[in-house]
């Protein structure tokens, strides 16, 4: 983004274009530019070099509101187990992300159990089992076609009995337009609470960075089924910027906690707003 010359409407249009191209969306981009226009007037900004700092600051405030300016990480718990539920539409990277996170926890000396609650898709359980092996985690599974809630119930009982530190629950990809599948998800959430009342301690929506405006609808509907605590933004190693997470935070108050940057176990990182914005504006 070339910030030279004077601060005029053309510069603001260029900035709005950069946001829209990053999938921030028309409405949220407009809000950001409106805020910027106000700040330019209030702070009497005349240097274009100040503009990037100002707009970055505005978006950073949006993303980190209620977090004292620091990215929220995953919960840490004094009790066992910490339970994390993974949801999202088809093909976004839920299973792969679980494998990566399992490895991260195992590497810090924690015991991890994966629950294979995608009992629908072909080879879904086999796929998770391979990740369990790669990570050094255990897996709780039944046959394809089993009731996902019963798999979750049994898995959590097993976790309590074996005193495991971390439980990661994989669910089948589903479209939020399918009421029966969203009800199934809600039932999974209620089943979790039957075994461990304050679980899941994290309920993460996995979002593909290449996704456009539909991600907002996904966050809204999945949030109704399971009360989201965060987003995992995957496939940021591509050319997509994942700007839809700005709207998800600004409108639904769900923060990004992790990002996926590849297909291997090591390709999982904590979310950094600075790096995220640098990619959008550079």
């Amino acid at each position, binding site marked *: 983004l070339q910030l030279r010359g004077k601060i005029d409407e053309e510069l603001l249009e260029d900035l709005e274009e950069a946001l829209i191209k990053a*999938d921030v969306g028309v409405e949220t981009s407009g809000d950001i530019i409106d805020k910027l226009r106000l700040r330019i007037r209030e702070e009497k900004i005349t240097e274009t070099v100040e503009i990037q700092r100002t707009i970055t600051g505005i978006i950073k405030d949006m993303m980190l509101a209620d977090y004292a300016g620091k990215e929220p990480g995953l919960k840490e718990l004094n009790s066992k187990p910490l339970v994390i539920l993974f949801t999202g539409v088809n093909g976004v990277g839920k299973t792969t992300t679980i494998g990566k996170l399992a490895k991260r926890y195992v590497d810090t000396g924690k015991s991890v159990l994966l629950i294979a609650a995608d009992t629908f898709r072909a080879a879904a359980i086999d*796929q998770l089992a391979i990740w369990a092996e790669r990570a050094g985690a255990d897996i709780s599974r039944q046959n394809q076609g089993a009731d996902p809630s019963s798999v979750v119930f049994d898995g959590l009982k097993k976790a309590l009995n074996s005193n495991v530190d971390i439980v990661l629950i994989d669910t089948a990809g589903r479209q939020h337009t399918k009421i029966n599948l969203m009800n199934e998800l809600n039932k999974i959430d209620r089943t979790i609470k039957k075994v461990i009342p304050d679980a899941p301690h994290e309920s993460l929506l996995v979002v593909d960075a290449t996704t456009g405006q539909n991600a907002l609808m996904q966050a809204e509907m999945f949030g109704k089924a399971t009360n989201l605590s965060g987003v995992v933004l995957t*496939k940021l190693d591509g050319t997509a910027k994942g700007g839809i997470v700005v709207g998800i935070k600004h409108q639904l108050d769900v923060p990004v906690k992790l990002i996926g940057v590849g297909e291997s176990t090591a390709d999982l990182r904590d979310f950094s707003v600075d790096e995220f914005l640098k990619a959008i504006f550079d």
Partner: protein
Amino acid sequence: SLQERFDGIFRKLKGKGKLNDDNIKEAMREIRRALLEADVNFKIVKNFVDQVSEKAVGQEVMKSLTPGHQVVKIVHEQLIQLMGSQNFKLNFNDNRTNKIMMVGLQGSGKTTTSAKLASLGRKKFKNISPMLVACDVYRPAAIEQLTVLGKQLDIPTFTINTKNVVKIAKKALKEAESENKNLLIFDTAGRLHIDQVLMKELRDLKQTIQPDYIFFVADAMTGQDAVNVAREFNDQLEFDGVILTKMDSDARGGAALSIKAVTGKPVVFLGAGEKISDLEEFHPKRMADRILG
């Protein structure tokens, strides 16, 4: 809806009967907003709005008594024209080996769609005996996934224990001859368009297979990045058509317009669910309506 927003804009014109530059501008802003919300690429939206604006300030619209309707009609027609006609026809010949290669980003729906196409081929064409070929040697349980789908259809999946996909393809072609399989569908691993090594793998695979069809499989919910991905895949592989998956979502699917505009290649099928039967024909008018919301 766009029609409702236009009615609002042009309602103020009742009794005056003529369109002027100002309310055309306002209508164009609404169109721009609607298309961007539908994930159509920024640059393509700009070009589209310029084209429509040019047509709308023309004489025919000026004379109309329902300017709102007239502008919406121009938008629809322009959109349908851009989406392309419906004249792609899948053609399988039962006395030779028909070959399809599936390519695209990670998670777009290639493996599932491979099975759907195998089933469609056998159903719609006489004497077609399909075989799936597992060329994804990277993703955990990818081969198992294709094999399971094949078993559900009683369609064999060709797989050998090697990391060399060109070798798999060569052996699959031989197997097809000896087993009288005349429709081969090659499923490949998802990959980034910017991964030089893996894009070269696809070029090598294309060279080996000499496919009749290369289908670029893309997710209907893809946003602004669709053009970057599609352009690169097309520049490197010259695919024949696009299969837009997950159309059973409520994604508006603007990526369809972006991909067509930047590659010139037609959308040939729509994935509309996870079942084998969930493969539909592409209808430009229906897609245009969906994109406009």
